């Protein structure tokens, strides 16, 4: 795979230990059409030279990147949602796919949305609508331009144009899903490193997608969750 020297894998999350995540399988999508690829950030982390085929293999099928996480990890965490405490939120429709260092040596997470069910999906189908993926791109691009500290949308891949046996039937009151990856980035500090995310996504009624986000490292959040459980 044509990773450049600026591709610096660093799956640091593994050092935290298995209490902080659950290894999961990505959904088996009937198709993978790349709709957005963030070449600016791909270049920042040494992945801009991926061929279109390689891109869909890694961000649509989630085949591991070299020397990175051998399998996606659904992160375990707790928190408050609309001020109600939930001791077990966890990644319900996404996972941590890979961790990389950027030019400033920040540890970044490539995290997904719409990549399938996890132990934390509860009644959810693990999917993202294509519209949701498109909105993720628009929000993150605009925020970045306005100087807000935000995750960046790394990739959006349309994963199904309609529901099929492999995508599981839509729930009556639910939109179809899509996958998206986001990359967020952050810098290491005493309390933990920054976080980065990536997402991929697909067409709404009933189109689904998968997004990858790049964002600063989420490990610190997980460490706090572990502390709370003790």
């Amino acid at each position, binding site marked *: 795979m044509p990773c450049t020297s600026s591709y610096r894998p660093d799956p640091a999350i593994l050092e935290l230990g298995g209490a902080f995540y659950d290894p999961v399988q990505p959904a088996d999508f009937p198709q993978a059409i790349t*709709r*957005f690829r963030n070449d*600016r950030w791909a270049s920042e982390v040494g992945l801009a030279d991926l061929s279109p085929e390689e891109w869909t293999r890694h961000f649509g099928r989630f085949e591991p990147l070299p020397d990175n996480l051998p399998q996606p990890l659904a992160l375990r*965490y707790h*928190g*408050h*949602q*609309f*001020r109600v405490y939930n001791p077990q*939120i966890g990644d319900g429709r996404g996972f941590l796919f890979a961790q990389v260092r950027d030019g400033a040596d920040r540890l970044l997470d490539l995290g997904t*949305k719409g990549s399938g069910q996890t132990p934390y999906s509860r009644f959810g189908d693990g999917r993202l609508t*294509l*519209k*949701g993926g*498109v*909105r*993720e*791109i*628009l*929000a*993150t*691009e*605009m*925020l*970045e*331009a*306005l*100087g*807000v*500290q*935000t*995750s960046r949308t790394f990739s959006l891949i349309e994963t199904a144009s309609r529901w099929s046996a492999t995508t599981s039937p839509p729930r009556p009151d639910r939109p179809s899903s899509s996958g998206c990856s*986001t990359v*967020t*980035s*952050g*810098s290491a*500090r005493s*309390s*933990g*490193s*920054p*976080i*980065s*995310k990536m997402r991929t996504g697909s*067409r*709404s*009624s009933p*189109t689904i997608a998968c997004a990858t*986000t790049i*964002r*600063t*490292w*989420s490990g*610190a*959040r997980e460490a*706090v969750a572990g*502390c*709370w459980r*003790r």
Partner: protein
Amino acid sequence: MTREAARLAASYIAAGFVHGVLNTDNIAITAESFDYGPWRWTPHWDGGFTAAYFDHAGLYAFGRQPEAIHWNLVQLGSCLTLTEDAEALQSALDAYIPAFQEGLRHAICGRLGVVPRGIDPDTALLAAIESGLAKRGVTIDRFFFDWRGGRLRGGASYGDDFAEFRSLVADYQPAGGIDHPYWSDADPCSMHIEEVEAIWSAIDANDDWAPLEAKVAAIRRMGEALKPAE
């Protein structure tokens, strides 16, 4: 982290952004936000503007976001009392309000493209901007676009609503240039709901991705124009 989170809250306000779901699990330990679902940009300076249709109480309305982010920090602080000194945590949290005020005047001066002059004059300028924008005669984006560098450009008239602002801003020096061609455009680059829906409709109805691609290019061009001077 308190200071960074306060800066995040300030940058949301200066951007006119409403995340919609500021649950504790949507902000990383690096104070980077992510997971953008029902977000919106508020066209006008309206503290009650709410993004998520299910947020009936307006918990995460435009003007309540600084409070919501602070509330999230308090939850993190209470987790940390398991291992850290509570008084030290409290004093860390106490830094939030001054850091937010500091962050807001810098973010607003940054978006306006003027050099900050100090707490008192900047606070007065901020109050004058808020009171003018709160009349809703002009959108947030249009105001900052027309007044880039602290001098009125274009043919819009800013009457009595902005009398106080006009008198105060005269004492400010421009920060960086307004040479970028973006500043000669007829209209600012915005991200209001009508445009978001139009971009999605083109994809949904005609598989036409050109409007999305054009918008991303326009946003990045604005980002170049907004970059602080070296």
